[in-house]
């Protein structure tokens, strides 16, 4: 079997594992749920009533969208004073923050599934690289 075919079979298996983990096993949904809980707690620190935060659900993403009555100062803060966006941005794992009534100023995060696939491809390549270090050294023996 050709080397390229073997590598593609491995890649397909890796991507399939990523899909199973993200979808059927629910790791993607669990991550977004966890991040949303933390983002809500962060918004609560701002002590501003009527503000809600949600993360992308269709497709799942780590991008947070804030909504509710808040002026620019409350939203973005001033100097060392943090705004609501900053509180949410500080949550580890949040990809980006925007307000529902504003055009997106930050580049939106990739869908979570795409990020998971990228991670899986990177891990696969690292595995291949380690394998090459372990078993791929060309050994020329005779006839050369």
């Amino acid at each position, binding site marked *: 079997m050709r080397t390229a075919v073997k590598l593609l079979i491995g890649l397909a298996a890796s991507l399939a594992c990523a899909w199973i983990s993200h979808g059927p096993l629910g790791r993607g949904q669990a991550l977004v749920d966890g991040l949303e809980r933390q983002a809500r707690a962060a918004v609560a620190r701002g002590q501003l009533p009527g503000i809600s935060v949600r993360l992308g659900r269709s497709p799942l993403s780590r991008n947070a969208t804030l909504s509710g009555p808040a002026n620019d100062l409350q939203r973005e803060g001033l100097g060392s004073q943090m705004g609501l966006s900053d509180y949410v941005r500080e949550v580890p794992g949040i990809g980006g923050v925007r307000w529902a009534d504003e055009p997106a100023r930050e580049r939106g995060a990739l869908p979570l599934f795409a990020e998971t696939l990228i*991670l899986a491809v990177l891990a696969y390549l690292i595995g291949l690289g380690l*394998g090459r270090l372990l078993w791929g050294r060309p050994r020329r023996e005779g006839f050369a």
Partner: protein
Amino acid sequence: MINLAENNLVLLILVLVIGLLVALWVFRGRSGASGGPEGNALHDEFAAATQDVAGEILSVDAHPNIPDPKGPPDNLQLLKGVGPKLAAQLNEFGITRFDQLAGLTENEVALLDRRMGAFEGRIARDRLVEQACYLERGDKDGFEAKFGKLGG
């Protein structure tokens, strides 16, 4: 991203292992570590041992079972160490293709080598089976990495 990686730690370890296994499959295959046809080393050893012992006990002159060629002949002189005379000698035993050579078991190689006359022992010594394994599956890169440039 770190948070995402932590969330998918099991997946990442699993995929890393897949990468390692594929690397093992690719690079071990290339280096021909099994020393013979792929995937049958254990069976070959068992069969060779059985045939050796049975042949001696029964005083039977066991002979290699070479399958009929399944296609047009290959240029056996592409194998390192095989010239026109050795190629002709192999042809006399019905070996005209790389897949026939690649399919020989260790025991069959030993039996054939004894009948090679002036070329006795050359199949094993020149690792013709291992060479043929590469050429049979069209792995020119693997062949050249191990045995040097493929000649004409």
